[in-house]
């Protein structure tokens, strides 16, 4: 048998971080080992308090060539921004 260990993407929530951030990837035979290795490699200097590992094959990414159709429609929708509405000064802070 000659199989390469699968690739895992590693996400870590920092000491005071609010959310998990992608920090890198590594190869490991299973999720448990991936967590152990991520602990050793990515939190050696107290970088975080929580680790997520996800097999890279399970991730689907948007494609850069879709940039136009994906994001351009939002540009013409100013009414989604709070600054779009005029609130009279007399009303005060809202």
């Amino acid at each position, binding site marked *: *048998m000659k*199989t390469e260990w699968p*690739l895992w993407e590693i996400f870590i929530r920092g000491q005071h971080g609010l959310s998990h951030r992608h920090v*890198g*990837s590594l190869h490991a035979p*299973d999720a448990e080992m991936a967590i152990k290795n991520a602990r050793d*490699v990515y939190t*050696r200097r107290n970088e975080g308090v929580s680790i997520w590992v996800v097999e890279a094959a399970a991730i689907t990414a948007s494609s850069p060539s879709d940039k136009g159709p994906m994001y351009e429609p939002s540009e013409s929708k100013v009414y989604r921004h709070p600054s779009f509405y005029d609130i009279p000064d007399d009303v005060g802070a809202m």
Partner: protein
Amino acid sequence: MYAQMVKSTGTGLKSADEMSAEERAFQARIDAGEKIEPKDWMPEGYRKTLIRQIGQHAHSEIVGQLPEGNWITRAPTLERKAILLAKVQDEAGHGLYLYCAAETLGVSRDEMTEMLLDGRMKYSSIFNYPTLTWADMGAVGWLVDGAAIMNQVPLQRTSFGPYSRAMIRVCKEESFHQRQGFDIMMKMAQGNAQQKAMAQDALNRFWYPALMMFGPSDKDSVHSAQSMAWKIKMNTNDELRQKFVDQTVPQAEYLGLTVPDENLKWNEEKGGYDFSEPDWEEFFEVIKGNGPCNTDRLAARNKAWDDGAWVREGMMAHAEKKRARKMAAE
């Protein structure tokens, strides 16, 4: 640790007229300082050059563990031993970040490892020099990691996003290593006569190999132009070498040690030191596989890979079994 002789596979610099529309758009993004990401279109030469450079860089981190690992069991104090262990662990981590960056270009880590093991891919020439005394741990940290930092700091701005991000992580730790190395040199240079002589001897042996880490002289570095146009490389080899000498000579003076170069002289006009070139014939021999430790280093890596095969396979088989059991239980 660094890749020092990367042949880019482009056919030389193309003018805008010779480029396809895709290539022109790509070059425009590079020129605008945009980062290229894994799913973006890129010229085949760009991809291949990066695989070589990042792969070679990763291999250097891994092979670089051997000359330093050589002294772990013989470190003179417990504190020095713990520091050295931590440093060698860091190098393993750097190798890992870099392999991951290279993998985003569509090559697998096992493929790269096999290319290292059978000599199709290179690693930094510096690790083909032996570490003969404890002072070498100081010289390696101070000079070799110092030269690596000089190379890697500009690479934090390199055009390929994953490589640039890996460099940011690596640089933080690498400057740590350089300080640790200098600290060893300081202790020895200020110690008794024998210790000082050991420090001087280590500097004598590692000075020119460290200068070689920047790669061949610009006039012999035929692939630089394309790598610089693609912003894979940010400075020429000679520029970085000059900067390294200018920074390192005063540090040697502080230690009370002598740089082994009788032509070393401050040049007021250029605002830098004049210095002797390393022996380039030796450099090309080392790169070709004929340095003092090339055979040992590759043999050690091959042995680890071959002897570890049953462990890798066992781990995978165990993971499969657990997965199957979990599926059956559900």
